[in-house]
């Protein structure tokens, strides 16, 4: 025992290195173990407050473009207002609809931090626990899917972008209905790959790719992008499809967080399946 202590004391430099290194790797692995809100991410209060004050200054630079966008959206909304329609219907009966229940709710959020050039990209949004945001909620923008909420603090959340090695979404060829897994290969922020698409799928360049009903985080039929090229790799029995993503990740400013009302129920049911299989 005494010898051991002397040995460690003599080589304290090396052991201190090992200790710190193990701690760092532990942090890495703990984070990979999906959704363990850690202290070391940009939703902690110090870094998020630095980010939001930095962003406050930065938005001034794109104010003109944002105004234009909002003006366009206002015009579009105004044209949909009741006052801009002529009402021909005769209201006889008001139905409190019980057949259709609201399934998805959308909450707008502002992107306060974003990256596209790393292998694993994240966004930070200015919504958190206080606004009812939970992990695993999907995030979409007006141009396509953005990512999945990963960590949540009181007023901020971080989002695992589509441009992340662990982000996999089930994508469907809109015209044909066949689906496969879409993931990002880390090279170009505008392109992702679908694998496992059956070979009898009727594909053509420019086909629209949307989310399928299999993914829990996103609603069905949200735009992902368009088919750019496709082929069968030697030795495989399914299509590999290059998709041009429709989301403009470098321009994201306002996004929508998706709340799925039946998620808990659906997840619980599907989890039950999994545990059955294991037994």
């Amino acid at each position, binding site marked *: 025992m005494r010898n051991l202590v002397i040995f460690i004391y003599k080589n304290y*430099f090396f052991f201190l*290195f090992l200790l710190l290194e193990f*701690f760092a*790797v532990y942090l*890495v692995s*703990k984070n990979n173990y999906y959704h363990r809100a850690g202290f070391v*991410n940009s939703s902690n209060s110090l870094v998020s407050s630095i980010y939001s004050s930095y962003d406050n200054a930065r938005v001034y630079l794109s104010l003109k473009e944002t105004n234009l966008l909002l003006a366009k959206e206002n015009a579009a909304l105004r044209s949909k207002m009741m006052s801009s329609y002529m009402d021909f219907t005769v209201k006889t009966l008001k139905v409190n609809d019980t057949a259709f229940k609201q399934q998805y709710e959308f909450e707008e959020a502002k992107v306060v931090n974003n*990256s596209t*050039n790393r*292998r694993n990209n994240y966004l930070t949004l200015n919504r958190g626990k206080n606004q009812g945001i939970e992990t695993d909620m999907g995030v979409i923008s007006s141009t396509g899917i953005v990512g999945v909420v990963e960590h949540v603090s009181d007023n901020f959340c971080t989002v695992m972008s589509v441009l992340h090695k662990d982000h996999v979404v089930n994508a469907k060829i809109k015209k044909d209905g066949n689906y496969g897994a879409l993931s990002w290969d880390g090279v170009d922020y505008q392109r992702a790959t679908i694998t496992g698409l059956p070979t009898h799928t009727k594909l053509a360049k420019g086909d629209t790719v949307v989310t399928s009903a299999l993914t829990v985080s996103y609603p069905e039929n949200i735009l992902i992008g368009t088919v750019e090229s496709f082929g069968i790799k030697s030795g495989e029995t399914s299509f590999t499809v290059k998709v041009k993503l429709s989301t403009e990740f470098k321009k994201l400013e306002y996004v929508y967080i998706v709340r799925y009302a039946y998620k808990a129920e659906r997840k619980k049911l599907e989890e039950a399946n999994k545990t059955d299989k294991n037994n």
Partner: protein
Amino acid sequence: MLSDIFKHIARFILLILIQGLIIKNIDLSTYVNPFPYVLFILLLPFDAPAWLVLILGFITGIAVDMFYNTPGVNAAACTFMAFSRHYILRLLSPREGYEFTMQPGIYSMGSPWFISYAGILILMHHLFLFYLEVFRFSEFFHTLATVILSSLATLLLVVVSQFLFNRPKAQNA
């Protein structure tokens, strides 16, 4: 002595903020992600105790991780770099050893010494960082290209910053 400590603290804060707020937002390509914050570890004095350098390396890494949302990745790489620094300094030491007045800068030690010192350590840091971040070998060559190009970019920034900010003071210094 005390003013030296303040100088290092100020450099720490400044480099972390530059890294987290400016460098992070420069989108050159997925291949070029410079991490010039390692300059803080590079410029620690020669006589700083080895354990302190290790701990500072860890803290620096964690601080950058907070901005990058990559818990532990930069911390691990930076600790590794601080560990290697001990041996690289020994490897590159002049024949008479380091003198008390020497600083690990380009003016004090000369360009060849500084570029090999910074180059080796930056390459080690980036190798560790990018491979730990990707954590799979299927993208081996893509990652290798990222490591090499990013290391060059970081080295360039580090050397330029030496010429810009670390000029020797007037003769009496």
